[in-house]
């Protein structure tokens, strides 16, 4: 008598299956591995599919972001979008690498004046230092009048933003910087 294990082993042996599964040439059914049999697209394991928009050009293609265990595992075109109908260009198709690739930086880096190397700095400290510098530069460059007319502004602060900023981000930036009296607030949209 052969044991069940041996029997199972033999039955799973593709050579046996070539005969048993009508695949005499061993081309398909007989040679399928267990892994292949259990194959499932990773998007099916996603806990959540989040609707998004491609961050590259301004066509505004719809994206679906697949999230599994708190990680983004795939980004694809959103077929529902009347703009893009699920399609993406090479850049949009590279969104997963853009957002999860090796090139991303996740730590604050600091270069002190005349320094030759980056240094570590914690985010909270960095934010505090930047706030101090804004206050100080603002007052250094303060100009209440110019050529006899009221200007009520500072010329020591400037900002240049990319056009991948959200509307809400632009809005807060414009609001804050304008309140601070900074006017040299610019964006890629000029360029």
């Amino acid at each position, binding site marked *: 008598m052969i044991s069940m294990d041996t029997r199972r082993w033999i039955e799973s042996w593709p050579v046996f299956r070539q005969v048993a599964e009508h695949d005499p040439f061993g081309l398909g059914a007989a040679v399928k591995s267990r892994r292949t049999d259990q194959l499932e697209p990773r998007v099916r394991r996603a806990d959540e599919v*989040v609707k998004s928009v491609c961050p590259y*050009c*301004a066509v505004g293609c719809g994206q679906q972001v697949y999230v599994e265990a708190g990680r983004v595992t795939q980004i694809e075109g959103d077929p529902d979008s009347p703009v893009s109908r699920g399609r993406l260009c090479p*850049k949009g198709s590279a969104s997963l690498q853009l*957002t999860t690739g090796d090139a991303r930086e996740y730590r604050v880096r600091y270069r002190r004046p005349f320094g030759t190397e980056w240094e570590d700095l914690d985010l909270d400290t960095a934010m505090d230092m930047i706030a101090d510098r804004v206050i100080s530069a603002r007052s250094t460059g303060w100009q209440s009048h110019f*050529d006899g*007319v009221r200007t009520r502004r500072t010329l020591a602060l400037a900002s240049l933003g990319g056009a991948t900023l959200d509307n809400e981000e632009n809005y807060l*930036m*414009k609001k804050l910087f304008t309140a601070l009296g900074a006017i040299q607030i610019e964006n890629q949209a000029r360029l």
Partner: protein
Amino acid sequence: MAECHPVGFQWVMEAKARGATVIHIDPRFTRTSAVADRYVPIRAGADIAFLGGVINHVLNSETYFKEYVLAYTNASTILTEDYADTEDLDGVFSGLNREDRFYDFDTWRYQGGDVRPASGDRSDPDERPHVRGRVRQASRGEAHGSGGAAASAWPETDDTLQHPRCVFQVLKRHFARYTPEVVEQICGVSQEQFAEVCRLLTENSGRDRTTAFVYSLGWTQHTTGVQCIRTAAILQLLLGNIGRPGGGIMALRGHASIQGSTDIPTLFDLLPGYLPMPHAWGNEDLDTYVRAETVQKGFWANTRSYMVSLLKAWWGDAATAENDFCYDYLPRLTGSHSTYETVLAQLDGTCKGYFLYGQNPAVGSANARMQRLGMANLDWLVVRDMVMIESATWWKDGPEIQTGEQRTEEIGTEVFFLPAAAHTEKSGSFTNTQRMLQWHHEAVEPAGDARSDLWFTYHLGRRIREKLASSVDDVDRPVLDLTWEYPLRGSLDEPDAEAVLAEINGWDAEQHPLSAYTQLTDDGSTACGCWIYCGVHADGVNQAARRKPGQQQSWVAPEWGWAWPANRRVLYNRASADPDGKPWSERKALIWWDEEKGRWVGHDVPDFIADRPPFFRPSEGATGPAAISGVDPFIMQADGKGWLFAPAGLVDGPLPTHYEPQESPFPNLLYGQQHNPVRQLLRHPENRYQPSGDQPGADVFPYVTTTYRLTEHHTGGGMSRFLPYLAELQPAFFCEVSPQLATERGLEHLGWATVVTARSAIEARVLVTERIRPLEVQGRTLHQVGLPWHWGPNGYTTGDAFNELAHLALEPNVHIQEVKAMACDIRPGRRPRGPALRELVRRYQERAGITDETGTEV
């Protein structure tokens, strides 16, 4: 379009499959040309001449859409006698002040009616020329971006179009010299090919057919950029292709929310919704501001409501009628403060601190070298990006370190690099190229120190406010009075982006969300962060997040996202119906007047007062929306008409004129005036201009270079050069040259070439290709050199940055740089290393006899 907007291009391919003819006009044969029905090679920087030629053809052959032109444009409007055209003044318009390089607009006016509209005092607030020049520089043309500006609402007209001073006749005279022969000479386009384009365009325009124009930076990045679009606008108005389905002029914008970045601008000259930033002269208080910036007719007449609602959104309860709604909290402009002036301010030490939010000027801005020199002169720099871009690392290994001009240990700039969140790691809205807002939802929280720019800005503001909390200095009131309370979410204290959107949308005195900008008031009872976005949070619902599948909607798909204004998808769509309110043809029906319902109905949201009948005529003296007649489709324009002639809004002329680029190997064939006389020049030793045309030394730079994007890369490369999957597709910086130029200059396919201008020299691998063709221009062969601009020293694929070559001569309306057409030299081999690089550039400057004055003539 196939190159840079491939997914948008699916619609062009679909149109083509349905029989549309696709014409591609470009200096380079691109992936778009490959699938176009016709490809027309053109000299970079000659578009106005080409389009002007088409206008001339349309006028001469009387192939314009007569009913449309008569009813909906200002063709019949009569101009004042004072107006003098380029025809009369050899290439300039009346009103040019050569001393201070600006135009007085006084003569570019309609005859009759109120010359100076009662509610819109557009006169110069200060008569001193240098002040008037400064006011021009502050981009008054860019404000009212949706079209309106001061002009008489009730001008004299001649419906026969025969009056010698009517716009139609002026237009005819103005473009008369743009003949096919001239087009051939200036653009290098054969007369046969030009004639065919004219034929195709005119045959495909009219009641039954419409033609669309699609452009990108190939039109805008010139010292005549705005006028180039204007030329297309004139042509499309003449052909009746504005406000109609399948018509229009589509700007294909290149960044996810670059439209949003102008709508809610981080631009020096604008407040949200194209309200101008207050100017130091003439905008002293709210009344003078409103008087100066408001027009008599149409929706811009309500500027005061928009402005007061904005001030209420920003300063809340602190903004009261008594204190002018805190209008005085706004800083004032005294000229141009664009990003390029900011660089000068960095170099002269005025500007001390600089924030870069996902922007990489060290390679991505024109004259990149100047950008870096400016940053090296700062006290501090904050760089927020996802990857280590060149603007964060120039102090360590930038080109100036390589040439030995700078040493790291001598650079005093303090640099903070703060990692940014990706679009999947934050919620917010992008406004796409068709003005449609689409919400993207946060999928995961950003890791490590990465944070959204919303987080950064909010918490920076919070910290500053906390630090200033005890201040009694009046200067700090605007910061302390700012409404800055947003709900925080998640473990990172991320501000709730939808709460910000709700503020942008606005609310009434009871804090109820507004649903349309028509609800805004000027008494302080409404708050609205951006009036044109009012309605995006109507009923408290995030309309930008609407995602009803396209398959379940009409072709207009109005329930996907939300388009400003009022979710209209085609602007000025009243023009899609004839003066009686009937579609021009069934085939091209979009909206129409429904007599029974007494409303405009159709596929799109009418861009018109919904119940204003076609036959409505306002009473004389009516103002604002009430003054819009039933046949005034252009409701944001002061006269309700499409402007063939622009009596206001532009600082460099009411009609487009062909000028040569700042740096051109050719003289202007049309006029004695070589350049746009009011182009903005930034004189600086690091920004030398080259001689042009017949000037001595111009032959040192005999070729024209133009820059562009490749499908496989994005902008300065920060979002593509660092990705292996994209880098491998275009793995090296290259220049594209014709076989003829390769022979002329000994360039070898896949070898190296050095491209030189008066600013710098860069090296690129050589692609010799028939896709770049020599053109016959003004009797000689012109070679053009194509240079994509995605590279820089960092990332997975590296190379020199095109922007090293670029100068700063700016378009005067919007201050955009001219990188699409520039004269250059090209030579075989790699560029010199170390100090020899600057030496090479210096020798070129010397050979061309370049001085501080070169290229700066009016």
